[in-house]
């Protein structure tokens, strides 16, 4: 494979597109598939066939288009971009007959037509899309993720070609460093620095690991990227491999994501046959191959040392750091571990340069962030916004606010490691530092909105239960501490706790945070601490008045209560 061949592929795809009357993309992300988009594809295809237009109208699957709860979504004409929502096998035919054949828009099926009195013909005029800046999701929802030719046409492997043929390893690392890209999976360590550490080891076998163990409940960013644009992730890993001098990569992905596994496997196979994997990539000496490792249901494996153990086929138990995997990772070798979204940011940085990237976002948190917007919010789904966008913009402009006229109570970010941010901080610009100062973290990008019907004590209990169940059991503070904190929170939720129980909780939380061995234990108290900080009166109500203000917790009856306080 060389540049000329790459361009040829791109041109032939372009030609094919040009010969089409219309191109119709059907969202085949996991969300839309579970809403029935596979049947929509079939129905569209047979409608086209019935008209004898198979060569003129292309029906193709795409990755996630974003507005997941309006699915299945169908996008007509990638240039004029009209999105239809809640399409089923029957009304799909209408799209072919009216829009494709007669250029007549169907207003009643337009995206958000059930809530917007004036639904938009051009989907990107919706407030849901207007403030979005798509870097990582650039191709997601536009391109057929099952076709490598389409990916190449959309620009995939151009960045790989650029680094292999015109950049030295240190130049690649310099570019990533200068871009300010930070790890999108957790604490936000500077990606370029990490690459530099792995690269400095001479003559060693090294590995690249792409962490797709997106364990935070309520987060599906990595899943969507892997499903919607697998070649971009693969290309990012290849560039990383070249930059640090590794010859082998692993993608570790959750078993709960069968479609992501399938699409990535397919992408690897295609890339291998096109010569993007294997020996002499782009006619250079660079060789690289990728293996997929499927997780087996352990949240702690998102922690990098546990991830390493799991890839080695062992119990996913973390070990103390240092040494960091960048120095001693897989089989004791220097290992570069970045998450899916981080790798997906790499190709555009290489192609457009660090200046372009660092202008997006804020000075310390550059670029964009993909969020999975869920919970009590009108427009749930997948979004990508520049760092520094405020929570208010995300929740009320893009997300369309809280449904049923209810009052916004809190936004939860960072999953079980994060915290709940109350209404008074809605105008905070979302970046790594600001979220930490509010007692939460960026995490991988789950953003769950809670309204007045959510009980914050119960939310804290829920997350503590999660951490307790997912604790590997190696270190004492996490194994016993999360269990004790969970039991105490349970007592509070049942109206059986005394003030002394709250004191115990407040003594335990900072201890578990400071003494646990790995990130799971260190962050497990965060949801508890942040709800205590902002919603203390709810704890008081449960403990003193034996009452759940949100009406969620079932208090033991008055008679039981007496007995319970005993």
């Amino acid at each position, binding site marked *: 494979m060389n540049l000329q061949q790459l361009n040829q592929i791109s041109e032939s795809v372009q030609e094919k597109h040009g010969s089409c009357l219309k191109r119709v993309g059907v969202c085949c992300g*996991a*969300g839309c*598939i*579970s*809403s029935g988009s596979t049947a929509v594809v079939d129905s569209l295809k047979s409608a086209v066939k019935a008209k004898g237009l198979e060569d003129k109208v292309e029906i193709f699957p795409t990755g996630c288009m974003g507005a*997941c*709860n309006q*699915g299945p979504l169908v996008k007509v004409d990638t240039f004029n971009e009209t999105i239809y929502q809640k399409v089923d096998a029957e009304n799909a035919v209408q799209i072919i007959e009216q829009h494709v054949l007669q250029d007549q828009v169907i207003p009643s099926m337009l995206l958000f037509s059930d809530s917007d009195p004036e639904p938009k013909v051009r989907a990107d005029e919706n407030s849901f899309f207007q403030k979005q800046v798509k870097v990582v999701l650039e191709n997601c929802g536009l391109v057929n993720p099952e076709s490598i030719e389409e990916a190449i046409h959309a620009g995939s492997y151009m960045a790989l070609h650029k680094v292999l043929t015109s950049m030295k390893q240190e130049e690649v690392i310099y570019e990533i460093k200068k871009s300010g890209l930070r790890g999108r999976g957790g604490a936000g360590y500077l990606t370029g620095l990490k690459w530099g550490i792995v690269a400095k080891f001479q003559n060693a076998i090294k590995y690249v690991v792409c962490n797709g163990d*997106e*364990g*935070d*409940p*309520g*987060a*599906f960013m990595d*899943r969507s990227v892997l499903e919607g644009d697998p070649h971009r992730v693969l290309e990012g890993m290849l560039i990383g491999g070249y930059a640090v001098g590794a010859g082998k990569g692993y993608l570790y992905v*959750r*078993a*709960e*994501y069968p479609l992501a596994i399938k699409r990535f496997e397919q992408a690897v196979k295609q890339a291998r046959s096109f010569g993007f994997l294997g020996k002499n990539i782009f006619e250079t000496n660079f060789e690289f191959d990728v293996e997929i*490792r*499927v*997780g*087996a*249901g*352990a*949240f702690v494996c998102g922690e990098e040392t546990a991830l390493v153990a*799991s*890839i*080695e*086929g*062992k*119990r*996913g*138990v973390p070990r103390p750091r240092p040494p960091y995997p960048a120095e001693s990772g897989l089989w004791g070798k220097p290992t570069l571990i970045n998450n899916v979204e981080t790798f997906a940011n790499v190709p555009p940085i290489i192609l457009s340069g660090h200046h372009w990237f660092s202008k997006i976002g804020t000075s310390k948190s550059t670029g964009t962030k993909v969020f*999975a*917007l*869920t*919970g*009590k919010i009108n427009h*749930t*789904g*997948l979004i990508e916004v520049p760092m520094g966008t405020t929570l208010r913009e995300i929740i009320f402009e893009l997300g369309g606010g809280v449904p049923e006229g209810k009052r916004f109570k809190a936004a*939860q970010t960072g*999953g079980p490691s994060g915290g709940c941010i109350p209404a008074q901080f809605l105008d905070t610009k979302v970046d790594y530092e600001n979220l930490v100062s509010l007692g939460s973290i960026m995490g991988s990008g*789950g953003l*769950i909105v*809670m309204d007045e019907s*959510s009980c914050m004590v119960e*939310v804290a209990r*829920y*997350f503590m239960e*999660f951490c307790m169940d*997912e604790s*590997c059991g190696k270190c004492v503070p996490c194994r016993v501490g999360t269990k004790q904190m969970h039991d105490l929170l349970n007592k509070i939720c049942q109206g059986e706790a005394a003030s002394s129980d709250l004191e115990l909780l407040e003594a335990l939380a900072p201890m578990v945070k400071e003494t646990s061995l790995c990130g799971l234990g260190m962050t497990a108290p965060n949801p508890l601490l942040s709800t205590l900080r902002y919603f203390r009166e709810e704890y008081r109500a449960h403990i003193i008045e034996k009452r759940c203000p949100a009406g969620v917790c079932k208090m033991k009856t008055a008679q039981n209560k007496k007995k319970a306080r005993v």
Partner: protein
Amino acid sequence: MSSGLNRLTDLEKPATEDARLKRIQTALKRYDARPDALIEILHIVEESYGYVPLWMMALLAKEMKVPPSRIYGVVTFYHFFSLKPKGEHTCVVCTGTACHVRGSQRVLNDIEDEFSVRAGETTPDGKLGLQTARCLGCCSLGPVTVIDNEIIPKSEPEKIVALIHEKAGI
């Protein structure tokens, strides 16, 4: 008090061999019985048998030269692997945060009450295995339930209960 312990006889391989066993042997060959492929192979075992039988662990220990205690430790560490056969039909209720705030607990409670089965267990007749998942990544559609690999978005307790009745024939 050793009721929870396994007996030596549990480790004996059943006399009959079938296509499932062949599949495992092929996988062992493909991975060259490398110890680091243990989890990958366990995935195939779980898929083929619906659980990881003890005798299979004994077989893998021998073939892959991995200590028995380590295999048992790995199988019990990861929630995807089960030690007992699963039900004929499976129902997985997602209890991820997004589903939780939208009422997945009610879905779970109703199923538990209706079919007298607790999460993580199988009904005594072996018809229905009820499980929970920490997050299926379909958060926009919560609460999400999966019945026999079919994802049911925006699950309502009554509908899910009816659907299980229909699918599992109980």
